[in-house]
């Protein structure tokens, strides 16, 4: 039973990374496509992509903190 704790935390961490990876991948793909179509708007596109990127990162980091808590506070 002791091991299941670590098991759950590890699987949770993996799922967090998968989710965050999908999110960042979508953002980066859309931004790259936008810049390729319209290089002049690169600054505006970067600005628009930055904010959701950081919010997304915040969610992923929060999940990681909770995973760490699951391990530390068992």
């Amino acid at each position: 039973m002791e091991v299941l704790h670590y098991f759950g935390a590890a699987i949770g961490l993996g799922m967090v990374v998968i989710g965050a990876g999908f999110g960042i991948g979508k953002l980066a793909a859309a931004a790259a496509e936008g810049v390729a179509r319209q290089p002049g708007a690169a600054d505006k596109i970067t600005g628009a992509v930055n904010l959701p990127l950081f919010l997304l990162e915040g969610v992923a980091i929060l999940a990681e903190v909770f995973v760490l808590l699951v391990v530390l506070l068992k």
Partner: protein
Amino acid sequence: MFALLLQEHAQEHAAEGAAEAFDAGKTIIEHVSNSGLDHPLIHLPTIVGIDFSVTKHVFMLWLVAAIAFLVVTLTVRRYLKQDRMVPSGFMNALEALVEYIRDAIAKPNVGRKWVSTYTPLLLTFFVFIFCANIIGLIPLFDVLGLLNHFVFHAEPDSFLARVVHGGTTATANFNVTAALATITFASIIVAGSKAHGFVNHWMNLVPHGLAWPLYILLIPIEVMGMFVKPFALTMRLAANMTGGHIAILAILSFVFLFTEMFGRAIAGIGVGLAVSVPLAVGISALEIIVVLVQAYVFTLLSAVFIGMAIHVHH
């Protein structure tokens, strides 16, 4: 399964040989966390139930504040004294930074009218967080600790011996970032109140003119959102700073783990040369970017939240 086998193996060897087994978790947590209240750097009296003793994160806070204050003030003083208005040396970098924060972060978010009101706050956030982050990356105190071990031989209870354990990132402490986020929280309310009046700021939290059942749903959500914003700021900065340090230390502790597991130093040195050191160098390089980006993110998000209170889009 494999990990379990390795663990058993390591425990057997640890039980056989080494006098004190290497505990990676304990070492890492000791390095990352604040020093305990029973072993502070400087003992100070307890006033109104609050212990004012200086722990290592508090010491780093003071150090960072002093360095940031001195560097910025001295540079600007010297620039103001010279005859020509052309900046030279470090003043160029400082001017570029101030201009960037004002034009790229403050102006698009808080608007042209309020830009000179909130740029100083945002600049303070950026400079302080950036200095605190980057000083955490420099292993200055660890070098001092090494010197102490081989050269100085300070008493274990003296100030020097305690201070050499002090080299950590102050912003990796959740209390520090919580204090910074509280400033953001307060400035959001102040910004809204200054722009729309105190009562209107709270009315602006929810959109006007909806059917009344929606408000039962919306008001709790918006009030929760008010607290989630600074909470997310707190967690993001502290967790990013802690995470990088933990990753580097965990990878470097492979050296000692493998030495213990196989019972000879050559195994640890081999793993260190092949895996640990290259990976740790890579992560350290990544950390330099993270340090810059996190200071930028905190500043940007503060500006965005203040701007949201000023320009209500409902």
